């Protein structure tokens, strides 16, 4: 009674099966892709190895290692699929193990390979004992982390596979990471922005006396990063 075109528009969730001519496209050509010998993610040490005479050094908090955009490791080497941090943060050994186990378990080692794009945890974080009072020096090293800036590539997955196959487990990993994800579709629309005032213009021209309260980082990043 109702045509399929009508139903498709007004009941978009309804799955309508129709018989018709199929246009089978040729499969994707993966001939140029070489798979490495060890396709799975390697194990990363939780604690970096120091020479035996060296006491593991303690380190300052260095939040600048997490602040701002990643300018170097922000592009894919293998040009296929991967996980990119949208926000700065720290990855500890627990997160790294989770990424490694999930990806190694879910991927097909015969067709795909995965590669780390971050260092093993190297920054020491100290903690005082629970309930201890202030004072008495800096606390002892509790664990090590890898600081990450926004835009950093964490893991790359590639091989003779399409995005849909890889998306499911990459999404799992991405959701568990300790970063707040933000949708970035600004790249395409930036050109069509009609607002004559941009953050860059306002800050560079000290409009409204904003230099009184902006941070020196706002002069570099124009409200984009914390």
């Amino acid at each position, binding site marked *: 009674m109702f045509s399929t075109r*009508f139903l498709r*528009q007004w009941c978009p969730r309804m799955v309508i099966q129709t018989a018709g001519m199929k*246009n*089978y496209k040729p499969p994707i050509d993966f001939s140029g892709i070489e798979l490495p010998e060890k396709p799975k993610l390697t194990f990363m040490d939780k604690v970096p190895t120091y020479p035996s005479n060296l006491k593991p050094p303690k380190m300052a908090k260095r939040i600048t290692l997490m*602040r701002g955009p990643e300018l170097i490791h922000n592009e894919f080497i293998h040009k296929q699929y991967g996980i990119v941090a949208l926000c*700065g943060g720290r990855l500890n050994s627990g997160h790294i193990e989770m990424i490694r186990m999930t990806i190694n378990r879910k991927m097909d080692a015969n067709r795909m390979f995965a590669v780390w794009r971050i260092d093993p945890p190297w920054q020491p974080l100290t903690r005082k004992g629970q309930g201890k009072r202030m004072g008495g020096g800096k606390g002892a090293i509790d664990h090590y982390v890898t600081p990450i800036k926004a835009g950093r590539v964490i893991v790359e997955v590639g091989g003779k596979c399409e995005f849909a196959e890889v998306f499911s487990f990459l999404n799992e990993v991405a959701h568990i990471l300790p*970063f*707040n994800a933000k949708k970035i579709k600004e790249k395409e629309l*930036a050109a069509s922005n009609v607002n004559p005032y941009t953050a860059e213009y306002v800050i560079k021209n000290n409009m409204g006396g904003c230099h009184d*309260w902006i941070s020196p980082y706002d002069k570099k990043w124009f409200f984009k990063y914390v």
Partner: protein
Amino acid sequence: MAAIESTTRLIQFQSLLKPWLPTATAIRWRTRKPNVQRPIPDHYVKARYKAALEPIYPDPLVGMPWYQVCGNLLAKKEEEEVGKYEELLAKQFHTRFADAQLIAVLHENSTKAHEIIKIKQMLHGHNMQMVFGSRKIATMALANTEFEPVLRLHVGRTAYLCSKDLQISKLLKFTKKMTSFVLLGGIVQGRLLTRNELQWCSTLPDINMLRAELCSILTSSTSQLSQSLTYQQQQLARSLEQHVKQNGEMSCDGES
């Protein structure tokens, strides 16, 4: 001169007496270390600035003509992809049309496969063929050709009966037998005709006969003239022949 000298010396002294401002100063207060992963909500003033500096993207429908802005538009038709098999079918379709002298355009009601087999058996050996094709394939085959007007009849399921012979009465007889196909019109030697015109066409005598008639009409005056000229001689010749025959009979009778 002296004034200039004194001022220059003053400037030189000033450069020596400049107070030293250290590049790094210790300040008692500084901004709180931000939590990069879970940042605190912005201060009111900063939030207002950020809100004012949000990008404004123009509405794509502003300035468009009314027929694109109307809210009652059905979803835009996606661009149809043409497959290789469809191209092949369209080529086949076109060759069958081009080879045929007589094509009947039929509306196809839903039929069972075994009925179509029976129809094909009926047409076998009569230089006729059923041609089926979707609107997409028919358009691909016939657009920008002499057969383009036929596409106006191709609404819904349409089939074509292509005949290489020019026997319209036979074609109509077959179409009457196909109960699930409804005759819409036909193409006779490159001309699109309606159903009634087709039926009138079938009542016409064979074209060769008509051609012979036309020839005879054209030559009638000259033949009449030649007949009238040679009438007397022919009559004489005939009567002499008859005479000869009679005499021959009589002599035979006399001899016997």
